[in-house]
């Protein structure tokens, strides 16, 4: 069965590039692209919501 992937929405206008989401993602789904965070490897996402929980700027929304 094909794995159902979540959607990770990153609001670039809000992101200040603090690296928190990139560092605290246990499966390294996110990366920095310039000054903002971006999704690098959505396949690896385990929907732990750590990025959404820890983002201080309300910039990440994960929908499982």
């Amino acid at each position: 069965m094909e794995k159902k992937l979540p959607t990770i929405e990153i609001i670039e206008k809000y992101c200040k590039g603090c690296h928190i989401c990139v560092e605290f993602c246990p499966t390294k789904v996110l990366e920095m692209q310039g000054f903002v965070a971006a999704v690098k490897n959505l396949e690896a996402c385990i929907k732990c919501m750590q990025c959404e929980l820890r983002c201080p700027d309300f910039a990440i929304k994960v929908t499982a």
Partner: protein
Amino acid sequence: MAFDYDKYLRPGKLPHIWCPGCGHGIVMKGLIRAIDACGLEKNNTAIVSGIGCASRLPGYMDFCTLHTAHGRAAAFATGVKMAKPEMNVILVGGDGDGTAIGGNHFIHACRRNIDMTYLIMNNNIYGMTGGQFSPCTPTGAKASTTPYGNPDPAFDIAKLAIGAGATFVARGTAYHATQIDKLIAEAIQHKGFSVVEILDDCPTTYGRRNKFKSVIEMMNRLKEIAVPVKAAEKMSPEQLEGKILTGVLYKAEKPEYTGEYAKVIERAKGAK
């Protein structure tokens, strides 16, 4: 499922003013989740703050909000609570605002045990005004006004609150994000003056003066120094050296101020 923060935020106010990596945003999200968990109504909840980085928080929240004079959040909030005792009153502020400039208001609000929740974001410094040392700056730490290291010992906000008479005192950190909302929710539900201290990071004015290479290093430091109260019971004083206890530190039942004051009003009316 993603938590819908937007319904508690004023539209068009984001992005907020806090610096990249500042933990205040994480604490604000915790506060929103706690308010949601407690089911507080927007029209029946007042969020009051003084001046400072942390005190900008009410500006983003779609509730009855009050942004007052430096350190005077407790004074204004006491007025709100006395005029409308049925209202849920939440105070927010930083360590400098709450324990230095507003130190007197803080201890007397604790003493009265008035039913309010005080959320203190302790980032060890006055961030907004340029990194002056606050009463919560650790001994030896550098600030713009202590370039050779701070000689003063720091306040323990939790002990100060307990000593002054607060009936619910808890402490968390910006790293332990899931704990924040649980502590705040318990504080909101407690009848009496509740103090929740959240240890926070200030990468801009504290971190760069004190040799923290990144926000992540500051966050990991919070993780390292925090010890849950239950785990601390099994630890020796040597092991607890330099550690900070987290969780619910103190809880007691005492007469609440608005209730006691209502009795005074009844007595003044001549009731026996």
